[in-house]
């Protein structure tokens, strides 16, 4: 039973996106293509566990998806024309196992069209590029299946209404559109890496999906420094994975991590790719983020961290993305380089905008403690705790409150 669904997950990942893309291209109808592939996956989920995994699962999915498309088209008389196209596609490609061109990049650009909200983008990517079922997508986002189903329907309606063309954008907005795709994958990674939901400290499936997408993008756009940057960023985070949680499943902060547990070989290998990208001078948002992660990954200890270099990289990031969270992280790096006083001054202008962000208050607490202002620090930690939904993060803050000796006052 488990084997069948694992096999399906693997084939869905390899083939679903290709299939949705090639059907979208030949039928000119993303919604129809996407629904048909989804139907095929749902059917596989139903029949594979008992009947066994077919000999050629990829071909099975292709045939099933095409049959589902035919069924859907028969039901709507107005779409007879597409039926002919579909039949021609069958003839051209044979009944099974055709080589479909890799249109997944196009599909990714379509799913990440700026008219769609980030949530909608992520839902569409997971369903149509990675072949997750609506139920699986709903679970990943910790919402109910009907809510997710509605979100997907709305998103697809938008794609249709906005007449988003099925092509890789070129021209002036090409870079902005790529950044949109990368940002979606980045949000997916973060969502999974440290989820804000109440049940799971880490949702590794989402992390795996995001990493898979990043490597797909690297294969499709190998020379693009931002794509390399995103992949390096993920790789460097994952290299530190073994040290992120202790045996009880509690978060271990970077400062306290056992660096001997980090995957040195992975870090070395990543630096090679990162260096080549950095040498081109094309220093975008994700390449700079990766460089910051590399500063941490290469520091022998917390105390030997090159905060000067990190502050410089944040300066560059602030030029690229003037977001309060980037400024917050820059202030934290500054507080390590120049002391808590300087860090606190940098936080001041962010206080209003980030008041609901728990890490703002946690950072503030850290700086106040650095200056021996323990009572004010305690108030900030309490505020951070109030704002945190993630159980592992909550326990971390509770432990800190308890160890302050002022707990309960």
């Amino acid at each position: 039973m488990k084997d069948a669904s694992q096999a399906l997950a693997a084939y869905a990942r390899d083939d679903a996106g290709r299939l949705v893309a090639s059907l979208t291209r030949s039928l000119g109808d993303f919604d129809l293509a996407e629904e048909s592939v989804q139907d095929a996956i749902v059917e596989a989920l139903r029949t594979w566990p008992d009947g066994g995994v077919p000999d050629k699962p990829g071909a099975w999915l292709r045939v099933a998806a095409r049959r589902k498309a035919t069924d859907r088209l028969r039901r709507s008389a107005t779409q007879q024309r597409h039926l002919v196209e579909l039949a021609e596609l069958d003839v051209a490609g044979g009944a099974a196992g055709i080589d479909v061109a890799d249109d997944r990049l196009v599909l990714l650009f379509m799913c990440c069209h700026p008219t769609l909200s980030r949530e909608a983008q992520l839902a569409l990517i997971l369903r149509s590029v990675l072949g997750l079922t609506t139920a699986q997508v709903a679970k990943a986002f910790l919402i109910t299946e009907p809510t997710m189903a509605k979100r997907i329907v709305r998103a697809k309606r938008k794609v249709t209404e906005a007449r988003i063309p099925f092509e890789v954008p070129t021209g002036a907005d090409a870079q902005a559109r790529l950044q949109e795709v990368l940002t979606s994958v980045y949000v997916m990674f973060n969502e999974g890496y440290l989820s804000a939901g109440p049940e799971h400290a880490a949702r590794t499936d989402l992390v795996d999906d995001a990493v898979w997408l990043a490597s797909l993008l690297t294969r499709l756009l190998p020379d693009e420094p931002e794509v390399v940057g995103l992949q390096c960023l993920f790789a460097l985070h994952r290299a530190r994975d073994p040290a992120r949680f202790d045996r009880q499943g509690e978060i271990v902060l970077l400062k306290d991590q056992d660096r001997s547990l980090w995957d040195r070989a992975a870090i070395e290998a990543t630096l090679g790719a990162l260096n080549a990208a950095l040498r081109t001078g094309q220093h975008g948002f994700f390449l700079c983020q990766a460089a910051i992660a590399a500063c941490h990954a290469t520091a022998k200890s917390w105390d030997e961290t090159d905060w000067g270099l990190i502050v410089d990289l944040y300066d560059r990031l602030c030029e690229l993305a003037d977001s309060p969270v980037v400024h917050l992280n820059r202030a934290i790096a500054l507080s390590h380089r120049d002391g808590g006083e300087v860090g606190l001054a940098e936080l001041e202008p962010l206080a209003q905008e980030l008041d609901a962000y728990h890490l703002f208050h946690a950072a503030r607490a850290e700086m106040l403690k650095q200056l021996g202002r323990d009572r004010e620090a305690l108030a900030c930690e309490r505020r951070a705790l109030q704002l945190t939904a993630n159980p592992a993060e909550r326990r971390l803050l509770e432990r800190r409150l308890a160890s302050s000796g002022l707990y309960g006052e």
Partner: protein
Amino acid sequence: MKYALLIVEDEAELSSLSDAEREFQEIVRWFADLRGQRKVIASGRLESRKAARTVSWKERTPVVTDGPFLEAKETIAGVVLLDVESDAAALGIAKSWPSRRGYKIEVRPISQATYEGC
């Protein structure tokens, strides 16, 4: 004075990895320092040579061919445009580039007339 540093990459020699950590720190520092001193006007990668097209002329008719003008194993990977006080400063910056097997830098002044006219 404005200069272009052309970062020339020789793919044939870009194989052996040596001390990636030190290289990383040096390269980030190099760019950060120049940016901090406001000497970089712009910097960026050039798309791969595969994306290059060459326009040439037969008599007076332009002919576009795919691929780079020069066949070479070397390729210009990136460009850094500098604004510095002197020729010596531009050369000095190029010399301070964290050296690495497989890379060369071509330093070219940008003609005064070129940018004052824009």
